[in-house]
Structure formats: C-alpha cells, structure tokens
C-alpha cells in the first residue's frame, strides 16, 4: 500500500575503458545487484577510479541531465535528477562538487557520448556525470555515464528504466553506485528517516485538555518525500526502523498507555508485540516503550515497568521469549543495540542523574559509560566504535560522541538551541538529530565531525529521528 520505491531495473550496464564499452561485457563485477561490490575487481580497477590532483579530492561536475524529448515533464525530471545527484554526491564529501552555476555556459550535450571534454577540463573537472532522460508512456529511461575528464574515458555506464513517480530515486541510486564504485563507500542516498511530528494539528480524541497528536512520518534521507505513516490521532513517538527498512517500531499511546507497535509499512500490518502482559507487579497496566530492533531483525529491546519500575527487556520480534535484562530500582530506559547485537547501551539514573551504561545482551557485564550532568538517548554507531548521545550542557542539550575504546568525548553541537535524539546514518558518517535552533523542534543532519548541518523538516514540531539501515 505504502510502497513507493519505483522499481528500478537495470536493463543494461556497461563499464569500460572506451566509449564503445557499452557493447562489450562489463569487465568488472556486474552492478546489477545493488548491494556488495564485486570482489573481483582486477586489472581495470586503477583505470576506473577517478582521482584528483595530488591529495585533493576529485572534482566532479553534474550538469542537468539531457531531456531527450521537449515535454515539460521530461525536462523537469532531467533537471531534478541532475540537482539531486549533485546534492547526494556532495553529502558524503568524497568529491569536491563544482558549483553548478559555474558551468551553465558549457553547451548542453545531445547525448551521453557527445561531450565537450576541453570545456570541462578548463573548468577543472576530474569527473563528469552526463545523463539522459527519455519518457515512454508512464515509464522513464535514464542513461548515465561517468567520465574521467582527463582520459576522456567512460568509467561507469548504466541504464535504468522504471516509473516516473519518484525521479529523485534515480539520482539516489546513481549516487550510491558511484560512491560504491569510486570510493568503496556505502552511500546513504536511498536510506530513509522516520520521526514523530505534530504537524497535522489534530487533537487527541477523547481528551478534555487540548492535546496535539503526534504521528509517525518517514522521509528520504535528505528530508524530501515526507509521508505520514500512522493515522491513529494519538501520541506516537520514538519510531525506529527494522533493519530491512520495511517496518517501523514505535511507542503509541493509542490505548491510553504506552505500548510498542510494529508497523510493516508496505504491507499495512500492525502488531503489538509487547502487549501480552495484562498487568504489572502493582496490578497496574504495564507501560512498554522505547523499543529498538536488533541488527538481525529478530529481537526487540525495550523499557517496561511490568515488574514495578522501568527495566530493560529483550524479546523476540513476535513478543515471545521475554528476557529481563536489568534489575535495579532506578529507571533503565532508552536502549540501543551494538552492530553485532551482543551489547546494549542504555540510560539509567541509578547514580542520581541519568547517565549512559552498557550491558551484554545476556544481562552480564554492566558498565558505566558517561559522567555527564545528564545524558540520554545513546545511539550506537553502525561502525560499532562510538556512541552518540544528548548531554545537558546548559539550559539545553548538545550532541556528543564517545569513543568506546578511549572513552574520549567529542561535542558536535554547541548550544544552538537544544540538540537531542541523535541517530546514526548506516555508514556512520552522519547523524540525524532534533534541534530547537530554528524555533520549533526540527530534524537536522550533521556530519560526524560536526560540519555540514542541514535542516530537513520545517513544518510543525518534529522529534526523535531514526535512520534506516
């Protein structure tokens, strides 16, 4: 129902050293499967990777794609793909992206093989991406070439066909493939964010006080294509992706108390995996919240007060086999898995103020991690080596990262509004977080070195982002 990935099928691919390579079998592992790079890159590897001057990053240019027909939609799609591709490549900072307005004067090519290399070399471009857009009925056909401008060789050539519903996805796919081929980097252009938003302004049904609902939203990694996932007009918070990107686990107050909901968003299936306990130790209904799915997708760690106060539990994704992880009269909340699924970091106020701890997924080896005045929302980097969190630094919070080996702490934000709820991109190079620096609570992204802050949402209050794997 909610499926919105256009089916991108590779109908032809070619990678070669010459312009006629499109007719030859690809010399390296076929990119038909988007995932792992072919392990068998051989003698052609050196020639395929574009390098820049000395130690400088390669300079890339991405002109508007060539519209092969003059209709407005094709022209618009061509423009969109070029711009989004430039943005996607710029995001990871592996290339120096030459500003697009500096090459407006270079004449538009008529095809992917008709390229004025001299002009691009004058501009200082090392790599040039040229693409065409052809519309046939409701389908799009996109052809792309990456040229090494110095050698005038095509180092990447591919053709995509698919629906015309979401042209940005073609750009995201191309960007991920180029990052993979040129830099052996897993790009995040096709990943998604989920977050909680009150933008609809609806009131919670059945309450006397004015209480605004929060619904779960998803968007592309860059904030485009924001879509609402829940429609229950209640409080829905702390969404996290399942590792396959097809489900979102969140905390919903739909029944008048917090419980975990697992929504398989492309199948329209909702499950409440923790709802099997009728009452807690005090005869009260249990409150289950802040669930996170293990990296293998098979387990959920969450905080529940079913035994009288907030403790951490691990259960199977279907709610079976509940295992109590912590046992302390203080509050144990906000868990996060390490990439191996063997450890969990969480927040506890067992020493007074909330601080971060780690514990084995079997409940052993509890270890204190932070000595902040107040720390919460640990998020284990997908690289496994560091944990981002929100620390009180004044009236508000800032994002910090602790290196697990050295225990050294780096601060990413500095008192511009309150900055909370960090979430790592799957390649560990960026963090999405909530900040009040622009007034209301909004989602931002920031590179893990603290640079390149981008605002991704602008409507209503948006909180608690999570990045798909």
């Amino acid at each position, binding site marked *: 129902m909610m499926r919105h990935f256009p089916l991108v099928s590779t109908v032809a691919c070619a990678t070669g050293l010459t312009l006629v390579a499109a007719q030859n079998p690809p010399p390296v592992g076929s990119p038909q499967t988007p995932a792992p790079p072919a392990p068998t890159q051989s003698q052609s590897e050196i020639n395929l990777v574009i390098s820049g001057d000395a130690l400088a990053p390669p300079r890339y240019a991405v002109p508007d794609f060539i519209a092969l027909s003059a209709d407005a939609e094709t022209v618009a799609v061509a423009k969109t793909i070029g711009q989004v591709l430039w943005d996607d490549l710029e995001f990871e900072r592996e290339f120096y992206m030459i500003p697009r307005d500096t090459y407006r004067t270079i004449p538009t090519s008529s095809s992917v093989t008709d390229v004025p290399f001299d002009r691009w070399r004058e501009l200082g471009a090392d790599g040039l991406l040229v693409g065409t857009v052809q519309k046939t009925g409701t389908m799009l056909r996109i052809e792309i070439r990456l040229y090494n401008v110095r050698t005038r060789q095509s180092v990447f050539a591919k053709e995509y066909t698919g629906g015309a519903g979401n042209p940005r996805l073609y750009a995201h796919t191309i960007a991920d493939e180029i990052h993979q081929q040129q830099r052996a980097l897993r790009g995040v252009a096709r990943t998604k964010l989920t977050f909680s938003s009150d933008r609809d302004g609806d009131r919670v049904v059945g309450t*006397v006080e004015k*209480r605004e609902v929060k619904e779960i939203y998803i968007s592309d990694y860059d904030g485009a294509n924001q879509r609402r996932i829940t429609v229950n007009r209640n*409080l829905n918070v702390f969404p996290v992706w399942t590792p396959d990107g097809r489900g979102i686990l969140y905390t919903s*107050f739909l029944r008048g*108390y917090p419980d975990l909901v697992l929504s398989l968003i492309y199948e329209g299936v909702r499950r409440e995996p923790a709802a099997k306990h009728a009452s807690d130790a005090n*005869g009260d209904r249990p409150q289950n919240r802040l669930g996170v799915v293990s990296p293998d997708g098979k387990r959920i760690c969450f*905080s529940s007060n079913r035994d009288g106060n*907030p403790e951490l539990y691990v259960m199977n994704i279907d709610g079976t086999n509940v295992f109590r992880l912590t046992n302390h009269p203080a509050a144990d909340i906000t868990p996060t898995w390490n990439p191996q699924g063997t450890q969990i970091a969480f927040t506890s106020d067992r020493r007074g103020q909330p601080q971060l701890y780690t514990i084995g997924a079997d409940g052993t080896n509890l270890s204190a991690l932070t000595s902040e005045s107040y720390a919460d929302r640990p998020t284990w980097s997908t690289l496994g080596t560091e944990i981002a969190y929100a620390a009180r630094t004044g009236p508000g919070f800032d994002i910090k990262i602790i290196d697990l080996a050295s225990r050294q702490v780096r601060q990413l934000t500095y008192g511009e509004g309150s900055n909370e*709820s960090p979430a790592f991109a799957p390649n560990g190079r960026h963090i999405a977080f909530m900040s009040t620096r622009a007034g209301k609570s909004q989602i931002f992204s920031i590179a893990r070195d603290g640079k390149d802050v981008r605002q991704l949402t602008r409507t209503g209050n948006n909180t608690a982002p999570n990045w798909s794997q």
Partner: protein
Amino acid sequence: MICDSWRRVFRPAELDLRGIMRTRTRYGGPALMLAALTFTAATCSSPPPKPVTRPTTTSSSGTTNTRTPAPPTPVKEPIPVPPEPVLEDAVASKSIDDLNRDSPLLPAFFEYDSSELTPDAQKVLDANAGLLKKYSTWMISIEGHTDERGTAEYNLALGERRATAARTYLVSLGIPAARLRTVSYGKEFPFEPAHEETAWSKNRRAHFVITTK
C-alpha cells in the same frame, strides 16, 4: 448515603431548622427545586431542608438577620462543614467529560526533577482520596507529566514516578489499587505551553482523569 451524611452533620446539633428554612426561602426557588430533584434521585424520603446557603448568608454577610428570630450563632455550628449535598449531586450527575473538564480531582504538583510529594501535594491527594471514597465507583487514570526541560525519553520515566507516587499515596489512604491506573506522558502534553517557570510549575503534575463513573 447523602441522607446519612446530611443527618450526621445536622441532626446532632438540633439546629433551629425554622431559621434555616426562612433563610433559604428568601433565596428563591431554583435552589429548592434543584434540591428536590436531586434528593429524589438519591431515593431519600422526606428530605430535610437544604443547608446550602446557611453559612454564607447568616454568618458572613451579616445583612440578612433582621427578620430571623435569633438562631444560634453560626460559628458554633458543627465544623467542618462537609461538601454541600447539592454540589455532590451535581458531581454525581455530570457526564465523565464534564467532570474531567472541571474536575473535582485536583492535580498534585511537583518540584523540579522530583517525584516526592510535597505537603501541598499531599493535601491535594488527601482531598482527592475523600472524593474517591465518596464516589466509590470511579476508576481513575493518574497521568504523570513533566516540564519541558530534560529529554523526552527520560521524562517518561520521571512522569511515571510522579504518577506512581500519587497512586501509592492514595492506596495508603485506603483507595483500592485496582481503581487507580497510571500512565506517564513525560513532557508531551504540557498544561501551559510557555517556556518559563510559571508554566513549568503547572506542568510538573500528577493529573487525574476519571475513566469510569
């Protein structure tokens, strides 16, 4: 039950009911009609006159005594005066939404980052316990709320502690635990949206919602 409480208060003192009657009638029919209606509903036979107006008219105003034949001085009447029967019935007859809109169960407020019951909060809960004993069918949801400082995640735990503290106290006063449910909303539903201490002090609260009458 209403009749019982009425008698308990007024019969032992053997007040001069005539004086009260006269006082009442000067205040017109609506109060009497309401009293009649509500007492009928409460299946009381021969309801005694309603004492609603007595304390205020004869003691505090001091201007209406000219025609009454010197009733006992009001200050010597039994104290404390219980909640007035007419009001009680108004409470009993309200819908749940109306009750919650102007709730007789007041919120208990908390200090910053604390779930300890202050003396003021205990007083509020004492009064709430009285009402919950009186309306013994009411089922209550105790909502724990926090101010906006602190993270959304940790505030869920803090709000839970506040709701639990209120619940534990009410149970210690004899309210059956089964009637009291808790839920923490953390900082999600501030009562006052402003970003300063006056608003914050109103948002750090255990809020009572009647879920079943």
